[in-house]
């Protein structure tokens, strides 16, 4: 049983009036002589129990009468066969449960999502078999189902990283229920009504569709989170963001980088800054890392996953003349020590002309000027746009283009020009 005007139930206080009147009534009755008082006392003694019972019943009756009047004013609703045993007309109902990231906010030790789920359960629990139900989560998908099935879905709902556009979702839900031939059409929005979820649009709701917004009491909490994370040059660059104008914006927090659950680095960072954590030497392949920030009330943005690929070392073949080879050989040795390259392959060829059949050719100027033409022809054959020119005149470099090099003494060296 439910009530159409539950506020009228406040009138139940009036049910105490008969009892109060009974207790507070202190009338002084008129006085009169009556000689056969002994008969009166005897009659009263004999009927005392009956009179007490009668007074009690009368009190209960009066109290019940007032209570009944108040209950009638509250318009109780009883389940009938016509309504399929429910207390309302058949209803098309969409429950929108906003389990977006902001619902992960922890207030008083409990996630906001739990409160939202309780509200959603309350909306669904009142549904009857004659109703048609849908449940929409942050993914925006309308799931049709029975009450029990949707309740199970609500129970299993977790905080989602997706953003829910409430205006668009309400608009879609309203259209959905409006298309159903039910006497009652309702959309229940269960959300923390985060500003970013409301957007700028306006949900047009057809006439006859009632939209009920259910939101737990909330307040703005200072927040910081991992804004961005990427791996470059053997290090993870992690950007920290925070709620502007709050203490969280200025306070430093610990950032931890884990790879496969193992902590590989830690740093302190303030919101608005970017910290770099060096990665250990990793083998080739795809790597998954987790950036974890000290937990605050909103935990959804305190953790971020990053993925990067470590390429295998390139296979290098060097075909250099002995006169020029020491420099290239020393460089290759350093790269080889760092497992960046490996000798004996064909992926990269280092020589005085491009090698056919290789992916990358590193062409160094030939030591003999006579071989420059041959090298340029090889470059042209491979589609290269650069060409070696003749060696310049030895002496200081002069010119306004590169002031920093002005006056630098050079010997003859071939140069390449496009």
């Amino acid at each position, binding site marked *: 049983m439910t009530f159409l005007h539950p506020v009228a139930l406040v009138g139940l206080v009036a049910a105490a009036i008969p009892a109060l009147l009974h207790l507070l009534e202190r009338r002084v*009755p*008129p006085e009169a002589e*009556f*000689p056969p*008082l002994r*008969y*009166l006392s005897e009659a009263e003694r004999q009927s005392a129990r009956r009179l007490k019972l009668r007074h009690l019943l009368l009190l209960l009756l009066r109290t019940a009468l007032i209570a009944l009047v108040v209950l009638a004013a509250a318009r109780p609703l009883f389940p009938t066969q016509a309504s399929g045993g429910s207390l309302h007309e058949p209803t098309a109902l969409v429950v929108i449960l906003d389990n977006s990231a902001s619902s992960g906010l922890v207030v008083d030790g409990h996630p906001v999502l739990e409160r939202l789920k309780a509200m959603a359960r309350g909306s669904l629990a009142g549904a009857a078999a004659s109703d048609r139900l849908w449940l929409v989560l942050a993914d925006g998908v309308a799931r049709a189902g029975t009450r029990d099935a949707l309740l199970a879905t609500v129970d299993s709902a977790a905080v989602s990283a997706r953003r829910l556009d409430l205006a668009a979702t309400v608009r879609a839900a309203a259209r959905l229920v409006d298309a159903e031939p039910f006497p009652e059409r309702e959309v229940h929005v269960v959300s923390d009504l985060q500003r970013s979820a409301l957007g700028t649009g306006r949900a047009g709701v057809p006439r006859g569709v009632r939209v009920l917004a259910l939101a737990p009491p909330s307040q703005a909490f200072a927040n910081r989170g991992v804004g961005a994370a990427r791996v470059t040059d053997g290090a993870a660059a992690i950007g920290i963001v925070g709620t502007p104008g709050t203490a969280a914006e200025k306070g430093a927090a610990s950032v931890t980088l884990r790879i496969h659950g193992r902590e590989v680095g830690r740093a302190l960072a303030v919101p608005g800054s970017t910290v770099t954590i060096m990665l250990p030497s990793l083998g080739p392949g795809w790597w998954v890392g987790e950036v974890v920030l000290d937990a605050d009330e909103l935990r959804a943005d305190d953790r971020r996953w990053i993925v990067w690929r470590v390429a295998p070392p390139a296979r290098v073949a060097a075909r250099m003349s002995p006169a020029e080879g020491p420099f290239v050989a020393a460089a290759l040795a350093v790269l080889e020590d760092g497992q960046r390259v490996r000798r004996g392959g064909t992926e990269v060829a280092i020589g005085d002309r491009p090698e056919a059949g290789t992916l990358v050719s590193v062409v160094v100027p030939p030591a003999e000027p006579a071989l420059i033409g041959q090298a340029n022809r090889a470059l042209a054959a491979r589609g290269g746009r650069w060409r070696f020119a003749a060696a310049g005149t030895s002496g200081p470099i002069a010119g306004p283009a590169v002031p920093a090099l002005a006056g630098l003494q050079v010997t003859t060296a071939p140069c390449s020009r496009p």
Partner: protein
Amino acid sequence: MADVQRIDLLDPAEVARFGGIEIVAQGVVEGFLTGIHRSPFRGFSVEFTEHRAYQPGDELRYLDWKILARADRLFVKQFEQETNLRAMILLDASRSMAWRGAPTRLTKRAYADRLAAALALILLRQRDATGLITFDEVVREVVPARVKAGQWARLVRGLVDTPDGRGTAAQAALVRLTSLLARRGLVVLVSDLLFDRELALTALRYLRHRGHHVIVLHLMDPAEAELSGPPEVRYRDPESTASVVVRPRELARAYRTTVRGEIDAWRTACRRHGIAYHHILTDMPFGMALRLLA
């Protein structure tokens, strides 16, 4: 139609307006005796004098059956009143008797005075020695039983001189009365019987044991028989400080049952001890009350 004009059958309160106790009592007795055409106390305090031939209408109980058996003739016995009967009227003058339930009715005391005067007049006319004792907590007035002229006036004066009761009728006074009634005779107790029944019956049993013929006239105002009044009222006993707050409408049925039970208890107890008991409401015409005694 003629009966309606008889003063003994009129409303007692109306009759009381005709005059004092004497006038009212005489009027009542005249009407009463006219109505019954015979002695109300036949066979009592009378003595056989002669026979006369039976006439239709004579009571069969006065037939002389011996003459009928011997001579097969119908004769009735005639009696002569004697003067050796001593009747004593005991009148309760307690405070509770000075009460009436409505201004249009007589108080129980006023009703009792007039009834006692009428009864005494009838007895004296039969030449029975009649006396009066009034009492409440104590014996107030004693008029010894006499049959001489002027006795009725003395009895009436005794009634008038007894003020409305100041106390309650007590069993002690009844016991005191028994010592004043030395010679056997008729004892008529006129009271509202608002005292302990067992103690009063003890005294009445004693009188009965002494050979008295005892008649109890239980007077009651109609308002005492049926409880009514405002929705809530504090009733106070005029003879004590006791009081009780009641709602008459709620208690009416139980009260009626209690009163009827009390009347039945008096009637049963009196019958058990050979005492005549009559319940009289103060709105009952005097003639009808006297007829109860006939």
